[in-house]
């Protein structure tokens, strides 16, 4: 059984076809780096897997089950927004809010639920961190807490939407290493979306590249190539390798580099 299987999936969002007739199969226990230009549908694909967007056509199976909302086997870190008025709250309460958070009633945790929160915080080494108010944590520390929150309920597929955005290279490395370590220790599948390939190179087993409604999945050497990327971008793309780094160029401009800077 694969972690994620898409059969001829077509997804429209806001009147635009984001994915068209995509078929792919992601095996269990893999670390997948998801890349692609802005608007290529990285977030939309995640929301479709979560059952929040219904595909126009085709079928999606998550760990053998049809994609549906509230699937406990899928963990998720949404793209970080500014945390509006709730910044003073400590990390522990923030993480714990996801514990059975969909059930009615008072947010009083049972002993088992508290242990689950402790376990998740321990997994990412954030037990100390969780005592501090959120507003006093750095971007990297906040990603740690978000990862702990996503691990509640012990998911077997983890979807991480741009966790490296607005982090400096040092913290980017820290987050990737931590996710890799957790992924290996728990033997789960991770889909990690990012703007840049290089911070992920050492960690990923496969890359899922989206562009112009299409998707390419495979090992880095199979996907990050001139023909595949030229097809996904719809223009002439060059791939330059330099010591353990890969640069994807359109003409003399490195793609995605600039867009990433806009976000930072």
């Amino acid at each position, binding site marked *: 059984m694969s972690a994620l299987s898409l059969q001829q999936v077509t997804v429209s969002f806001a009147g635009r076809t984001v994915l068209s007739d995509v078929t792919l199969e992601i095996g269990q226990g893999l670390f997948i780096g998801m890349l692609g230009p802005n608007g290529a549908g990285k977030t939309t694909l995640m929301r479709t897997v979560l059952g929040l967007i219904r595909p126009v056509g085709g079928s999606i199976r998550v760990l053998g089950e049809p994609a549906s909302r509230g699937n406990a086997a899928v963990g998720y870190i949404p793209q970080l927004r500014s945390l509006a008025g709730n910044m003073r709250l400590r990390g522990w309460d923030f993480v714990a*809010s996801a514990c059975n958070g969909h059930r009615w009633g008072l947010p009083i945790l049972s002993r088992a639920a508290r242990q689950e929160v402790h376990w998740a915080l321990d997994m990412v080494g954030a037990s100390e961190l969780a005592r501090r108010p959120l507003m006093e944590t750095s971007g990297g520390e906040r990603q740690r807490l978000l990862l702990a929150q996503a691990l509640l309920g012990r998911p077997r597929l983890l979807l991480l939407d741009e966790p490296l955005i607005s982090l400096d290279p040092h913290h980017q490395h820290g987050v990737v290493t931590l996710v890799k370590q957790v992924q290996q220790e728990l033997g789960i599948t991770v889909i990690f979306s990012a703007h840049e390939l290089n911070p992920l190179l050492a960690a990923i087993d496969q890359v899922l590249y989206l562009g112009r409604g299409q998707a390419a999945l495979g090992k880095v050497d199979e996907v990050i190539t001139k023909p595949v990327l030229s097809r996904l971008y719809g223009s002439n793309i060059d791939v330059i390798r330099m010591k353990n780094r890969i640069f994807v160029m359109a003409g003399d401009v490195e793609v995605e580099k600039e867009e990433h800077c806009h976000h930072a």
Partner: protein
Amino acid sequence: MLEFDFMQNAFIAGGLVSVLAGVVGFFLVMRGQTFAGHALSHVGFAGATGAALLGLSPMWGLIWVTLLGGVSMGALGERLQGSDIVIGTILSLALGLGMLFLHFFTAYATQATALLFGNVLGVNTDTLWTLAWLGMACLLLLAIMARPLVFASLQPELAEAKGVSLRQVSMLFLAIVALTTAECIQIVGVLLVFTLMVGPAATAQKLTSHLGTGVLLAALLALAEAWLGITLAFYTDWPTSFWITALSSSAYLAVTVLHMLRNRRPLASAA
């Protein structure tokens, strides 16, 4: 002071409303929706004066119209999120309408001050019962929805993925806020609802980063401010609403200054 019936009523009404306002206000501040709460009270003004014009009970006019306003705001949901201009426009339109209703119904004009600035010393036993029932209904509803409310407030996208209906949560919560606003208006009036709903909650959030402690603290602060305000009003003969606003803002100011001093110290020593 407690030998007077009106003072007993004032203390009971103040107690009921402030505890509710503190608790509901905590979540309102957490969700960053304080302006919506402020706007709802103005919508209530139009409701109360409109009801009076039609010969209906101003209090029930207030309650129904704020409730309608709250539920519609919740239903509009994300489209209204952060659009201060839309909320502000509705707020001023509501005040303007209230003014118009008062213009046609001059007999009620004497009550306008009570509506705008509150009149806790004039609460009768019937009103007390209404406040008690509504307050209990609000707290019960809040207790039922507390878990998804916290989840949806802190992590909306994740909550949605886990099966929480954001719109349902928003509508239910703003209905509670609307009823709480209607209750607060009885004590501090339309213009000063912020003082009971937002003041104590914001102060509590500066004092603790624990969720449960914060809610409790917000309720206790609101209660202390309301009761102390009523007491001070009795002895000074100054308006109760003034004292409550003075206490509420002083508490917030004091905690803010304390915070700034505490945060400056490690920086100064590091330099």
